[in-house]
């Protein structure tokens, strides 16, 4: 057991740090949930990509550097420590790409991945529907066979950044007569600007306009945009949610950097007599460290050949609860100024409140932990 970085990893860290020091915008970009911010972040993705920093763990042929999971973690630590912009292409990179690596054809990978890596095509996730949130398998949007492809109809909702994104991926019912709701679903990619697509932005709790619902009226999708076998959509979709919850969605680098900023805030404006607040600052430091080390332990297991499983749910509940506690502590440290909407902590706070809802609600994650990790009886779900 060790926590030692190799010379190679340290060299990689130094290279990333130097690049970031030179290129990270001096002033924060406008929020990526707004139209102008979206454009600015797309340009940042192109900048990252030009020097092969946008998808470091991907194979070189698709624009990556082919680095292993430990170097990916090193990169993330540097990225967040440098205060670099949020990743507007995260749905594609974190959710669709792993699916494509596991299930797509070589042609699909060659066509879809490079423009994803460069930010030329930004993807939205079209999974949730008005009647199908936690019970995603009950979804009703359908894809009907037609010449050379499929016609999509129905409604998707709560799609992050879909108001400005280019394409979307989701699952659709292709066999309404299948005996079980998880069967007869197909995983498809489609164009958000195709005929028959209507996008309606929905202001989020923080008023940002990039969230959207997607109405689909006989939207044509060619066969080449089906991922995996028709009818296998559920299995394909579920094989990658572990990535989202377990690893990529909230990298430990983000929380290490945030806890560090919190300590600085406490040192500059904390009241030394307020030990209750001091304790919460300490908890934030400890939580970030715990999350980092938990991830390193998981990464070590993957490197030794195991695959991510239900333990991803431990991660999801931990980081989402942690994120809220961290931001609440910062707001309390700020006192009266905590209320001001423009601050980085205030923005982060509103967003953190969504953590226990998206990527599978924490209630559902706790069920998974109880049933799959502790072996408790399966409940009705």
């Amino acid at each position, binding site marked *: 057991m060790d926590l030692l970085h190799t010379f190679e990893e340290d060299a990689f860290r130094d290279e990333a740090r130097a690049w970031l020091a030179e290129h990270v915008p001096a002033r924060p970009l406008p929020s990526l949930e707004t139209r102008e911010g979206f454009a600015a972040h797309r340009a940042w993705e192109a900048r990252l990509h030009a020097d092969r920093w946008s998808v470091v763990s991907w194979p070189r042929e698709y624009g990556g550097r082919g680095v292993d999971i430990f170097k990916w973690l090193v990169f993330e*630590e540097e990225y967040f420590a440098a205060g670099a912009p949020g990743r507007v292409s995260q749905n594609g990179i974190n959710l669709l790409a792993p699916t494509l690596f596991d299930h797509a054809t070589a042609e699909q990978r060659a066509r879809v991945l490079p423009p994803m890596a460069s930010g030329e095509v930004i993807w939205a996730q079209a999974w949730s529907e008005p009647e199908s949130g936690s019970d995603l398998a009950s979804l009703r949007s359908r894809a009907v066979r037609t010449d050379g492809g499929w016609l999509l109809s129905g409604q998707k909702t709560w799609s992050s950044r879909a108001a400005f994104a280019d394409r979307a991926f989701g699952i659709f019912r292709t066999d309404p007569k299948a005996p079980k709701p998880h069967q007869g679903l197909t995983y498809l990619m489609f164009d958000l600007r195709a005929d028959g697509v209507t996008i309606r932005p929905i202001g989020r709790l923080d008023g940002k306009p990039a969230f959207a619902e997607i109405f689909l009226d006989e939207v044509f999708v060619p066969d080449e945009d089906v991922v995996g076998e028709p009818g296998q959509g559920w299995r394909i979709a579920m094989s990658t949610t572990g990535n989202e919850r377990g690893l990529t969605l909230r990298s430990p680098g983000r929380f290490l950097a945030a806890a560090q900023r919190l300590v600085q805030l406490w040192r500059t404006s904390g009241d030394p007599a307020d030990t209750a607040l001091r304790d919460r600052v300490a908890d934030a430091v400890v939580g970030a*460290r715990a999350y980092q080390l938990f991830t390193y332990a998981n990464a070590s297991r993957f490197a030794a050949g195991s695959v991510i499983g239900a333990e991803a749910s431990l991660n999801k*509940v931990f980081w989402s609860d942690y994120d809220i506690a961290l931001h609440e502590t910062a707001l309390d440290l700020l006192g009266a100024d905590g209320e001001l909407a423009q601050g980085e902590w205030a923005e982060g706070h509103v967003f953190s409140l969504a953590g226990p809802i998206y990527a599978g609600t924490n209630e559902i994650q706790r*069920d998974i932990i*109880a049933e799959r*990790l*502790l072996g408790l009886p399966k*409940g009705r779900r």
Partner: protein
Amino acid sequence: MRFLLTEEQAAFGRSLEAMLTAADTPSAVRAWAAGNAVPGNALWERLAGAGVFALAVPETYGGMGPLPVELAVACVAVGRHAVPGPVVETVAAAALLAGLAGQGEDGPAKRLLPALSSGGARATLTLPDGGPYALDADTATYLLTVRGDELRLAPGYGALHASADPARRLYRPEAGGELLASGPAVVTAAGYAADWAAFATAAQALGTGLALLDRTVAYVKQRTQFGTAVGGFQAVKHRLADTLIGLEFARPLLFGAALSMTTADVAAAKLTAGEAAYAAARTALQLHGAVGYTEELDLSLWLRKARPLRDAWGTPSHCRSRVLAGPVRDASPGGWRGALGRG
């Protein structure tokens, strides 16, 4: 980078588990609490035979250490099986003597460490940075005290102070006794020993929490109410899920601390493991219902340990101040790089 136990380390843990499972530790704990040390002493000899007490002792003094990762594995097993006796204190005493020797004062180490390492002697101690009580002084071979910058062998101890956990027998050492060492080296060594005490207690607490969770999961699977296993109710499941989350995020902190042994890392591990184990106890008691609130049920042995372990050798508040007093971390580089080094 390989932040996972090696096969040898995991095998060591499995062999301790098997040995302790076979040893009927609950009756040894009950006897210990009643003042009968015989079964506890037998357990102690088995631990010593497995090499547990050699892990904190440097090779020069007959030990195999210091091996904090292996020690953490051992102390988790000690906690899981509620092994009675001053295991943590013996480890801390070894660290104290080794720490002194590291600064050139090797007389006490030469004299006391070989017997501690082999398990032939056990020690208990009080340090400026701990509470006033010496655990299990009545069964310890050596009762060490650090006051100011003096390390002494205490001449005796007063009356038993009953702990909330009757298997933790608390005594106040008497003042005076043979002076073993004095000066700044003692102060430094005492700080080092306090870290090892907190570290070993964190591991013991984690083991305690894991035992509480295991027993509770087994119980809610077989206890039925309203015609169904109570473990099928979502409110029950979610509490147990939270218990697992608490313990599983304490584990990496414990092993991270084992690799650096810095005061801040140890404090983080102690804080988190202590809180997770106490929360596990609260959940275990609640989900057992009234039967959990009886001393007859073996569960009580762990239930009563959880709170004292949370506070022994570093209360949560003390640990939090240690975390914040730690070096300002460079947020990016392998976390706490200074301590971890490069390889």
